[in-house]
């Protein structure tokens, strides 16, 4: 299991942020920064340079894909994992092409999310491939 220092959560729904922050807490107890929109997410990325970004695809205002592109423009090595409600293949492909490390579905269980995140962060011992969310 990979240990994280700082994680940025970008999702407009507070309950999803709460759940995801509990999930990432078990990855070495990182500081978790939560924001509810893409603009704030980009600003905080620039200031904080987190090890991992969890980014909602569907947000009012600036959407996930545009936010992803802006973050990758700041740091081409950023590890951004998209959070989707439905695994819409087109959106996922678009995100991977734009530089996302993988995706998780919001209805995925904690253990599955952990194994996907570990795989995205390059932990070879992780059991699941990054795109293996269902």
């Amino acid at each position, binding site marked *: 299991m990979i240990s994280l220092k700082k994680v940025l959560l970008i999702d407009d*729904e507070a*309950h*999803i942020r*709460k*759940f995801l922050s*509990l*999930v990432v807490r*078990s990855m070495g107890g990182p500081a978790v920064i939560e924001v509810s929109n893409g603009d704030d997410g980009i600003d905080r990325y620039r200031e904080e340079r987190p090890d991992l970004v969890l980014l909602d695809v569907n947000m009012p205002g600036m959407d996930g894909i545009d936010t992803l592109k802006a973050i990758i423009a700041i740091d081409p090595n950023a590890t951004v994992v998209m959070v989707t*409600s*439905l*695994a819409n*293949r087109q959106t996922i492909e678009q995100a991977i092409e734009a530089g996302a490390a993988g995706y998780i579905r*919001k*209805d995925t*269980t*904690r253990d599955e999310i952990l194994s996907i995140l570990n795989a995205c962060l390059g932990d070879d011992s992780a059991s699941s491939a990054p795109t293996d969310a*269902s």
Partner: protein
Amino acid sequence: MLVQFNQLPVSMRNLPSLDQRRILVVDDDRMNIRILQSILQKEGFVIASADSGESALKEYETFDPDLVLLDVVLPGIDGFETCRRLRATHGETTAPVIFITAKAESDDVVAGLTAGGIDYLPKPFRPKEALARIRIHLQNRLLLEQLAKANSDKNKFLGMAAHDLRNPLASIRGLAEFLADPDIGPLNAEQLDLVQTIQSASQSMLRLVNELLDISVIESGELQLTKAPTNIVRLVEKSVRLARIDASKKLTTIILAPGAGDTESINIDADKITQVTDNLISNAVKYSPLGAMIHVVVVFKNQTCRVCVRDEGPGIPENERSLLFKDYGRLSAKPTGGEKSTGLGLAICRKIVESHHGEICAQNLPDLGAEFSFTLPLEA
């Protein structure tokens, strides 16, 4: 049972107005056209006419009628053929066709209805009867349009509701899972039991919501397959591995027999077919008694690939067979370990398999249990 008018849904009480409905009259006898025209125009209908089958087909495209009055005997192609061609081009959306026949012989009537007509009017016309029939068919057509619209609204609403319910439900389940975690805070036995109940209730509700979402997508015709060459044996192996987790709780063994025939990669939507194999195998576990053996086989034969799942459950009662692959078609058989069933799973499986031009079926095994299988063409 007699349904009272005021108990009907509002949309059916307000019968749509027939004013300005468009009727195409096709007859090679100008006199007949004139008679019909005068009867119909008085009622507020808009009329166009044609004097042959060929010109009727042309006129249909520009005039876009709501109903067609079509003489059977015409120069060139006859009325029946004209009707068949209209239906071949426009399918179910073809405007209703009423044939005009000089002799209402039974054979003619049958031929007309077989060609896709909806009714016939005998010559010479009895104006009141002709009008009454025309009104009924126009009315029915409008109601059908309204029904189709209402059904598509229903699918949209179902999809939106299911979609919006998913995220909060996923959070409820996920947060309950954390609450039950001893690391977060020790709960006493009673509290833990309550939290675990929240967790399992939200889990089964999430499954239901996901299935409703699947149904709404499929029903609205928006099921999109993303096909790619897939090793189906590998896919089935994965489903079996996943199902073994739940199966072990019921001391059930799942045996994946080595497949017969050469393994070929087939062109399918892997996620969707996985959904089918997951469903069939988890059903087998669900309905088989504790300690059962479930057999899964993949067979390649005659340009098809067949995946079979044999269980040791109670089988399918003969009188419930027709319900099996229908929406909400719950059978009398109960899961043997208190698992949940929505009655949508097999209906979804059928629709996925059929969208791959495949077939899904079920049969009772001679001694014990049932076999569920689906067949996919290799050239899909």
